């Protein structure tokens, strides 16, 4: 696309943000310390490790898994994850026969308390346009192959319900500790574009 554009073309976003920040601070509408707190929260505290803890516990603890599937918002809050962009959670479970994938075709709705801020690709036009009509080609881009007879369920987050995938547990999950399991849970597996990778020394 041409870099020359009509006169209202926004300037460099860096300059726009800087100008807007100083304007809002000067107006008394924003406290600069609040901005730092917000950034710190989403850069260091709220991220996909939260979701990984939820998943590992669900694999290890059948009572918790039942709670998670029946009352997802409460079950997730019981581990301390709640609030903005996760007010109304629904957990969808992957099995040998069913594979779930989450998208927001209209914007970028994503379960922040358990996954943090969405990755760039999740918000991008290629993902949002294709995953509802051609999910298998999308999965291939993530290196994910599913058997022909696996049913693919794509969840388009058009409301304030936030969808979260409970991936299939690795085959030997019973022999692994909660910490080991947690470290195997990727963010992408909780969006549904990947499966949990089995350790390579297993067949």
């Amino acid at each position, binding site marked *: *696309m041409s870099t020359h554009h009509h006169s209202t073309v*926004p300037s460099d*976003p*860096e300059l*726009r*943000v*800087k*100008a*807007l*920040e100083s*304007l*809002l601070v*000067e*107006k*008394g*509408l*924003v*406290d600069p310390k*609040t*901005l730092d*707190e917000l*950034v710190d*929260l989403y*850069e260091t505290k*709220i991220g996909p490790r939260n979701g990984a803890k939820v998943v590992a516990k669900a694999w290890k603890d059948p009572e918790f898994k039942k709670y998670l599937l029946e009352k997802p918002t409460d079950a997730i809050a019981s581990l301390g994850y709640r*609030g*903005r962009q996760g007010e*109304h959670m629904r957990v969808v479970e992957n099995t040998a026969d069913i594979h779930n994938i989450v998208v927001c*075709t*209209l*914007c*970028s709705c994503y379960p922040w308390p358990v996954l*943090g801020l969405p*990755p*760039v*690709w999740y*918000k*991008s*036009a*290629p*993902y949002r*346009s*294709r995953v*509802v*009509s051609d999910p298998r080609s*999308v999965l291939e*881009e993530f290196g994910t192959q599913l058997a*022909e*007879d696996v*049913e*693919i*369920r*794509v969840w*388009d*987050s*058009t*409301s*304030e*319900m936030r969808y979260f995938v409970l991936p299939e547990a690795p085959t030997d999950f019973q022999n692994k500790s909660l910490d080991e399991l947690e470290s195997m849970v990727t963010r*992408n597996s909780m969006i549904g574009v990947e499966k949990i990778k089995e350790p390579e020394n297993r067949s």
Partner: protein
Amino acid sequence: MNSAHDLGGRHGFGPIAPEAENSEPVFHEDWERKALALVLAAGSLGQWNLDESRYSRESQHPVDYLRQSYYENWLSGLEKLLVEKGLVTEEELSSGRAFSKAEEELQKRVLQPEKVYSTIEKGGSTQMESDEPPEFNIGDRVRAKNRHPLTHTREPGYSRGREGIIEAHYGAHVMPDQNALGNRIGEHLYCVRFDAGELWGKDAPSKHLVFIDLWESYLEHA
């Protein structure tokens, strides 16, 4: 509104080319940190709601929406709302200088740093009461209405005119089309299951379902 944000089923955007998860930073540029924080902090002033934010981003020129990065779109949406709601003037925005302080009432609402965590943790429920019983039951066959409102809606284009099955009823939630216009009313919300063949034609793969959350007024009996 039928614009560039309604992306489901569009062609031509090329590969997704995802960054590797373990090396992808939360923010790619320093200004993105500030863009996110400004949107959240300004939003907490309570002068607009989530659907007004979405509507503001969507109503940019579609070329701008697609050309800009996501945080740039957030920034454009925020600038537009600040002016529309009278929090800053066009002149202030273009000069980056405040010509007057915000009204005291508004300044009292400014999110304080020590309140950040509790505010985020509280979130904002969209569950509402409804006096009306739900029109549809789980298992009902429904059709997403063929509607093309000029204002904000959460009924994606690719679902319109298509038939599906009510898979879940989530109770009454804030109705986005109305909320974007400043009217907070509750309406029954359903999750509707569509076969890929119904959405994309007979050549669509079998064993592929799409679930879309749709409000009652988006739906009719099929």
